[in-house]
């Protein structure tokens, strides 16, 4: 189990993974409440890779039905924080 992470650490992790998937993206200017797809050139394959990477780095389960919750940066942070707490309990 990965150690407890702060919100900032989760945010850094998300941005790092995004940066690997979309290397041309300007991560500093991402708006936290607007969906990634509206800001970045990301397709379904990219999104799947993004979800897989989150799953592998954070050891959280992400059902397909929850994909919409990962659409924005804030949504991601909120969802992942909650999922980690659930699975650590």
């Amino acid at each position, binding site marked *: 189990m990965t150690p407890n992470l702060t919100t900032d650490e989760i945010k850094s*992790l998300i941005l790092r993974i995004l940066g*690997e998937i979309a290397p041309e993206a300007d991560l500093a200017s991402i708006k936290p409440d607007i969906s990634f797809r509206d800001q970045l050139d990301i397709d379904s394959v990219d999104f799947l890779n993004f979800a897989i990477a989150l799953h592998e*780095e954070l050891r959280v389960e992400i059902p397909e039905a929850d994909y919409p919750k990962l659409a924005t940066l804030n949504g991601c942070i909120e969802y992942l924080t909650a999922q980690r707490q659930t699975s650590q309990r």
Partner: protein
Amino acid sequence: MSAGTLVAWLKKPGDSVKRGDIIAEVETDKAAIEVEIFTSGVIEKLLVQPGEKVPVGTVLAIIREEGKAVEPGRLRISPSAKQLAAELGVDPASVRGTGPDGAISRADIEAVARRARDKGLETIGEEPVRPLAPSPAPLAPAAETAAKRQARMRQAIAAAMARSKREIPHYYLSTTIDMGRAMAWLSEKNRKRPIQSRLLYGVLLIKAVAVALREVPELNAVWKGNQAVQSQAIHVGVAISLRQGGLVAPALHDTDRQSLDQLMTNFLDLVKRARAGSLRSSELSDPTITVTSLGEQGVETVFGVIYPPQVALVGFGKMMDRPWVAEGKIVPRPIMTATLSADHRVSDGHRGGLFLAAVDRLLQDPSQL
């Protein structure tokens, strides 16, 4: 005189010799003769031992021209590749050549440089959670190459598309497909699966196209000279857009014979390699039909341009809930448009219509795919 016996060597390996020197004595039926040489250099190797009887014409020794270094296992590398290797800092000895007899070409050097760059990225990825790091700056010459590759790709697309519109009498057919059953089946399947092995609905579309082609094989053909030849194998080319712009449409080989899981794995692999620029040339030349989807860009209907020498292209638009009439009731359903662009020299609207109907029918029973 047909043979002679080597009596003695007068020189040994490493000795310098010059034209006119006597380097050995040979005894023949008629007389003992001295072996005079006609070149200058250093004795590299003696190939015949004293006392051995050998036919006339046998090579007795190897003389290396002076000043040339010994080159064991000399590299087969093109002059241009050698220079490129020096520019990109690639050690040619570490490169496996893909040319005739293992010759190393510019493409081989470029591939190694690219892998080295990608590896740099992966290394960062392997580390545990750490603060955001700027992505590594690509090597400057490689960046130029990427820009060049980019320009070349645009040129290639321009040439192929211009030729297509010039020569191919396109016709277009379009139909709307209720994706309700397919999506329900897919989410049920994905629900039980770990995230890494979940399927994207795109592979259902690809498989449906491939299987439908068995029923209308004239759409699965390529022009050879003056005739369109139907292909036994069905290799669906999948259009993949690249991050820097442009697109490629590499083949998923034997698409109709692969399981959905195999297709998913191979599709993800193609996308990854397409974007890393490491597709094999056969993957780009093998497709017998192309499938493209612009649904994620919000496009409703795709009227695609056929990629020569193929004779058909299938385009999918976005899937969205729309009112749909089922059993006399208006119900919301995920609806998607499928369009066929086909070469009218090879097929007619009637056959094209049957093909689209088959795609629709197959998507209504996804468990059969």
